[in-house]
């Protein structure tokens, strides 16, 4: 019980102190995960929408794959990215291992299937509603894709949040490809893992609370923006 109370005190102290090291960790967490989500959106939106829209051989298999990959184990992805980026790996020459870039790559791989799979579902539902009109207009595939993604934007933001939640919370992948190097690749989750293993449970929990608050803040701001926008466009 006292650990938990201490944790809250620790979390408060961390937040109040504006400790540079701590802020750097929070900043890196956000930078890595937000960038990964951005990349995942750039790939996942069009990919998911294309699978929803176009009939092609193997479409069922792609859908199955996307849905399955939503649950990719972070450590496995971390390991694969590690192998690819390690000195003897195919992309070893880039020297990306143990850099934030490697962490972004790993998280983007984790998040892309989530965003693509949810996008497929959302866009497929909207396509059912819009298809008569868009086909009657003889809209080109790219215009159709654009219309559906734009009009589904509020539902899609939920997919983005799911992706962000996955990225900010995972530890396995960033630990393996980032290495939890102080002042370089340490993020909140790896810091928590480290503090826990050192027995600093209060500090670990404090960091955990900050992580939760952060996730809450991001989710809440997206929801507020959504509520305003959705009211304007009458999505409800």
């Amino acid at each position, binding site marked *: 019980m006292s650990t938990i109370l201490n944790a809250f005190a620790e979390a408060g102290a961390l937040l109040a102190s504006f400790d540079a090291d701590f802020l750097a960790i929070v900043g890196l967490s956000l930078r890595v995960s937000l960038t990964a989500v951005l990349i995942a959106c750039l790939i996942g939106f069009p990919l998911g929408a294309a699978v929803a829209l176009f009939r092609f051989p193997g479409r069922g298999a792609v859908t199955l794959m996307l849905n399955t990959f939503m649950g990719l184990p972070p450590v496995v992805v971390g390991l694969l990215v590690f192998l690819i980026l390690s000195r003897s790996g195919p992309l070893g020459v880039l020297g990306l291992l143990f850099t934030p870039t490697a962490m972004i790559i790993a998280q983007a791989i984790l998040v892309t299937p989530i965003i693509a799979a949810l996008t497929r579902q959302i866009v497929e539902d909207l396509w059912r509603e819009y298809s*008569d009109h868009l086909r009657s*207009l*003889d809209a*080109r595939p790219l215009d159709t894709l654009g219309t559906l993604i734009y009009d589904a934007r509020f539902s899609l933001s939920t997919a983005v949040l799911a992706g962000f939640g996955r990225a900010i919370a995972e530890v396995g992948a960033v630990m393996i490809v980032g290495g939890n190097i102080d002042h370089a690749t340490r993020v909140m989750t790896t810091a928590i893992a480290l503090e826990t293993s050192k027995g600093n449970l209060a500090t670990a929990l404090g960091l955990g609370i900050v992580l939760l608050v952060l996730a809450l803040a991001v989710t809440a701001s997206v929801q507020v923006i959504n509520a305003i926008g959705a009211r304007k*466009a009458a*999505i409800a």
Partner: protein
Amino acid sequence: MSAPQTILPLEVRQLVFEANSTRLLHDINLSLTAGQRTVILGPNGAGKSLLLRLCHGLLRPTSGDINWRGTGTRDRAIRHQAMVFQRPVMLRRTAHANITHTLKIRGVARTERRERADAALALAGLSGLADLPARLMSGGEQQRLALARAWVTEPEVLFLDEPTASLDPAATRAVETLIEGFHAAGTKIIMATHDLGQARRLADEVVFLNKGRLVEFSNAERFFEGPETEDGRAFITGDLLW
């Protein structure tokens, strides 16, 4: 509306449509020319919507041909047509944005879109609702918006599938006036309805369908004065059972 190259007449030959190996349309033969307002009449399930969707190119025939003049396939012809559905598809945008979207799809320059959308909204009597999300509009307003949206594409042919089916008399009037506007501008009207009063008001010629077959195709006056077939007579006296 300028129509440099018309896609009419429409020639429908030996058209058959089947779904799940049930024949829903049987050997339809039809020739539709410019100028005439064509009304497709028939009881529920007669195949009116199917015929419209086939002609517009939203469905592929099981066999038979749908030929627009000067085009071998429907793919180019559809660009000269518009369709208004019974339940209009409203994009999750404002009324105004619903129209500019259509203009954008049809390659109209951004600078022109606003003005043309304003004009179309004014024509449909919707200027005051320009910034209202389309999905909040009433059924009648949505149908007028759908017509305004069709208007900006300057179609040579306008398909309408029971455009007033769930509207009150005033809204029905407004929609019919807009349809007359298309006709006056030179657009060929092809409309499905089972509202006999509306058919009498709007039709120049009647295509009467029953159970997936073309039963009568004649001048509207002749049809309403005395249908040639038993089914036709039964339909206009309200006795047709299906």
